[in-house]
């Protein structure tokens, strides 16, 4: 394609052709020029910018700028890490532009349409362009209204076609026909539904576009600005309280919340993808077992990282190598694991020491002394998820590090969190004396996530119920009565959405009437005990009065009361 020719054609058509069309051409041009010559690119950029000046659409300009920027930097083509799209400046640049909210859906539809095929990095970066490409071919002759409509659809949070497919997966929707003009009317209807969201989105778009300076100067300058932009955009994105996402909630979806059990059952039914390859991966890792043993004995400790649950791998290691020796398995992902319980199991089960310690450091000192005295003592410690919520603390890490630095304690641990290495400073690292092993397994985190309080999973509450009964059983009859009173009151008000809790004075009144307490001091003492066991929560209302609340969901509470009644 010769440049003057293309230029002429564009100049002729610029009034009539919709923005997208122009953009498409520009994109093609820049794409070609990058391969040819950089100086030429600069020229063409300038020329196109000039030509576009009479087009008032800010959005188009913004996209153009972004495109040229990415192309000129060549970031999409050459990336030293090979990490492609995710690290390129282009993506960073387009962070939280208004189109952002729809991109997920766009990418999804794109991925869905190309089964078995891959999507080129360019496409994933600007999916709106590719999604539009077929439309534009068909609609170049049609009127502008339709195009506008189409464009709106792109901006909407979730395109109609996606929504429809989810509720009733219809094979006909898979076909090309969804791009035909007939569909656009349905889209129009759909548009009304989300129009409120749209208006909220388009205003920031305009202001943002206006604030960005027009493309100018040389590329070198842009390059310099890159870092500054990045920083600024980060803070821009995090300073605004406005969040540009759709307002839809799971409740509207009429999807019942799955509980842990059904989730588990359902996942069992779903076949594990790529089981053969995962097995192959695991076998590769298992070949390292003897090497790990050697290195553990030479004073190193081993830490495993990489995507996928490493629990099975460590378990395999334990059963195949450590059967004969003393070992301790710590399930770090377990929500109630504590440092004390780890130390206790060492002192009680391994060292057979009966007695308590004042503080973890004391206990550690004792352990260190014991291990130094008796050189025949050896202990393997396996920690699943050393970076878990409960073991993350500075103090527990320090003590674990000191434990692991003992020559006869061999530690092998796994980490999963992306920021896990930040847990350790130089001092701890030198105590741990890690050797890192990448063990990407791709196995699902079944055990590890079962305790995670996922938003999507309904809490069964079985844990809370059992703890309630356990604690209550150890209390006096009066105390149980007090708790019952509170629970009953809370259940009575369960349908009241503005129920803040029972105020202390009211509660005291009720307790007196039921002959449960004789002074507010005794009641306060009782409440303190409850609070220590996390049975109740107190909240100060707007009027300064203390309100008492049981932080358990209603069904659990009802179950609990039922059980209590049975007992009595």
């Amino acid at each position: 394609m010769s440049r003057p020719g293309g230029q002429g054609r564009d100049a002729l058509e610029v009034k009539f052709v919709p923005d997208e069309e122009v953009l498409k051409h520009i994109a093609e041009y820049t794409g070609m020029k990058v391969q040819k010559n950089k100086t030429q690119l600069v020229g063409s950029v300038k020329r196109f910018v000039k030509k576009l000046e009479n087009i008032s659409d800010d959005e188009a300009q913004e996209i153009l700028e972004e495109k040229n920027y990415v192309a000129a930097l060549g970031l999409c083509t050459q990336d030293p890490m090979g990490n492609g799209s995710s690290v390129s400046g282009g993506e960073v640049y387009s962070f939280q532009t208004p189109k952002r909210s729809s991109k997920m859906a766009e990418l999804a539809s794109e991925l869905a349409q190309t089964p078995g095929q891959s999507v080129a990095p360019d496409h994933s970066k600007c999916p709106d362009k590719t999604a539009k490409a077929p439309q534009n071919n068909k609609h170049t002759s049609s009127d502008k209204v339709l195009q506008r409509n189409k464009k709106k659809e792109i901006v909407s949070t979730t395109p109609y076609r996606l929504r429809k497919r989810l509720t009733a997966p219809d094979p006909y929707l898979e076909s090309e026909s969804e791009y035909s003009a007939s569909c656009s009317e349905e889209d129009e209807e759909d548009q009304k539904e989300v129009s409120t969201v749209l208006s909220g989105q388009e205003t920031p778009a305009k202001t943002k576009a206006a604030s960005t300076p027009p493309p100018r100067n040389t590329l070198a300058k842009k390059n310099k600005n890159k870092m500054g932009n990045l920083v600024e955009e980060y803070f821009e994105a995090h300073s605004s309280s406005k969040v540009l996402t759709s307002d839809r909630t799971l409740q509207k979806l009429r999807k019942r919340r799955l509980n842990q059990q059904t989730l588990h059952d359902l996942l069992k039914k779903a076949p594990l993808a790529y089981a053969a390859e995962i097995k192959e991966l695991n076998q590769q890792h298992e070949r390292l077992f003897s090497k790990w043993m050697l290195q553990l004995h030479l004073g190193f400790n081993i830490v495993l990282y990489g995507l996928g649950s490493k629990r099975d791998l460590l378990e395999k290691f334990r059963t195949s190598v450590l059967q004969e020796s003393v070992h301790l398995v710590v399930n770090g992902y377990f929500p109630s694991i504590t440092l004390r319980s780890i130390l206790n199991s060492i002192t009680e089960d391994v060292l057979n020491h009966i007695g308590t310690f004042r503080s973890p450091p004391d206990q550690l000192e004792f352990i260190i002394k014991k291990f130094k005295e008796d050189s025949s003592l050896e202990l393997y410690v396996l920690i699943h998820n050393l970076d878990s919520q409960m073991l993350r603390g500075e103090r527990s890490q320090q003590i674990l590090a000191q434990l692991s630095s003992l020559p006869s304690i061999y530690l092998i641990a796994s980490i999963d969190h992306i920021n896990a290495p930040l847990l350790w400073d130089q001092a701890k690292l030198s105590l741990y004396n890690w050797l890192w092993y990448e063990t990407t397994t791709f196995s699902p985190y079944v055990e590890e996530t079962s305790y995670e309080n996922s938003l999507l999973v309904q809490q069964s509450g079985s844990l809370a119920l059992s703890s309630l009964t356990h604690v209550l059983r150890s209390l006096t009859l009066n105390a149980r009565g007090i708790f019952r009173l509170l629970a009953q009151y809370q259940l009575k008000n369960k349908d009241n959405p503005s129920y803040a809790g029972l105020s202390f004075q009211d509660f005291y009144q009720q307790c007196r009437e039921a002959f449960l307490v004789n002074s507010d001091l005794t009641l306060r003492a009782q409440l303190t005990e409850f609070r220590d066991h996390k049975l109740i929560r107190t909240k100060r209302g707007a009027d300064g009065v203390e309100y008492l609340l049981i932080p358990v969901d209603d069904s659990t509470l009802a179950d609990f009361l039922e059980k209590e009644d049975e007992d009595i």
Partner: protein
Amino acid sequence: MASDQIRNKGVNVTDHDLTFRSLSEVLQNNITPYIALLEAKDCPGIKNLMQKLMGQLMNCYIDVDSSEDEDYVQVSHNRIRCSMTSLINWYEHVTKKPDSETPSKKRTSSSRHWQSPPVVVVFKDMESFSTKVLQDFIVISSQHIHELPLVLIFGIATSPMIIHSLLPHFVSSLLCIELFQSLSCKDHLSTIIDKLLLRASFPFKLGEKVLQVLINIFLYHDFSVQNFIKGFQLCIVEHFCSQPVSVLCCQLVDAKKRADSLSHDQCENIRKLPSFRRYVESQVSEKQIALLTVDTYLKEITQKLLEDLHVYHENYLSVLRCLHVFTSFLPKYPLGKQIRELYCACLENQVWETEEYESSLQLARMLNKSDLVTMLQQCVEIFVSSSGKEFDNTVEKLKEFLTQFQKLEEEAFQEQDVSVSSQKELQKKTDLYHLQKTLLELKESRRSKKLTKFEMLRFEVVDYIDSLVRNYLVPANHKTLHEIMYFNTASVLREHLNAAPRIALHTALNNPYRYLKNQALKSDEGSISNKAPDICIVYKLHLECGRLINLVDWLEAFSTVVMGAEGPNADAASSDQVDDIIHARFIRAVSELELLGFIKPSKQKTDHVARLTWGGC
């Protein structure tokens, strides 16, 4: 008055424990048995400080006179009130004791100490102590200095001025301060490299890349000599684990014996070595056949080659040191200031082909005489002390150079005369035109002038050094059987010592094909197929979102992708069932992402999660 000492040290943290431990050991052996090591994090208040201090001192006490009073100490340790008086009582008790009831055994052990040994208290990290605690302790102890001779040692990471900014004048005036500077970690590293790597007696060697990785970790990450040693240990483990011919990596005598008793398989291993193959190819055909088929002949040759290698190392190291003498004198240090840099350069490839070597030779040709002479003398010393036998000639040659330099002394006078006369000529003629002319002439003559004798000699010396380098500093990987001694797989080191967990996660999520070798997953760089594992798809989708992610949108996008991947055959009959399963898979993937730390639940909006990463990765 409490007499105090201050140790100054750099930024490096991990080695400090070691330094202090060895310091206290030295003190314990030579000066006093009473040493306490205190750390800031154990001493938030003066009471804790005293507790810790007394605890440690009492423990010392147990160690010194064995078990007889253990019960007493055990009790006192728990019961005793932590005050200066009790400390003084304890001190009096322990110092008097050897005089009154001296078992002979104890006397010998304590005779190395003074009559009343001082109590040494080491503050490991002075900057982190709260000023109040330090002040109180110093003021209190200064009042008891007559009963309790106390020496305080402060570890300071910043400048020594800190002691004056931390302590007010009335406190610091109670101290008698003396400053000691500890060696920088780089010096320690040089010592280690010198003692471990640059010794022919130690057969295990590091390849160039490996050494570079270790030094880079040291210089750019932690400055920790401990970690350097750890890396070195790992190298040894890996070498002996992964390289089957490493059985021969031992002292020459043992290696010869072992070479004699090699099994057939081991011989095959030797034949497989690339360097050995090159050697075989360079031989005549009968020898080739013998080497490849006859084990006994192979063993014989191996022994010979091992000996060659040993001799090569001995020579190599002496010449390396000699070259270092030269290069470390040059301005701007084109080949590096430290011997480790020079060593790396020589290990990598033929050093005489590099530009840096060329320029350093140029510079060496411009050295003045006195420098040159001192260098030659140093070289002579190195060669004389080296164990290599081939250097007799070299030493003689160098000595000859030295005598020639001495002879030049007289001739130097004459040369001076010449230069003086030409200078005089310059001063005589003041005419501008003539001045210009003479200057030009002078320049001409200087250019065309024959080299002076000194310059000729200097050239000769440099050329001689050059020939030594070319002879002896052949890179190790040109040597046959170098695989036995050299550990070369730097990637292993980087993987295990300097891992990048985040990049591994990122690759696994973005490009699962790297791990799961399934054709369906194969895709271009940076993109992803829709048949990828669930978590990869969910991750990829979430990358398209801003700070908050709507779970419903996410779920829909996910199910679109998954259904698209499964194709149209997922018909309406089982749609409900399928839907549930997809929902469950989505939940799993999202909670996995949560576990990995990419998202977290957000209360800002219902059914939203917050993204925790931004931009790349």
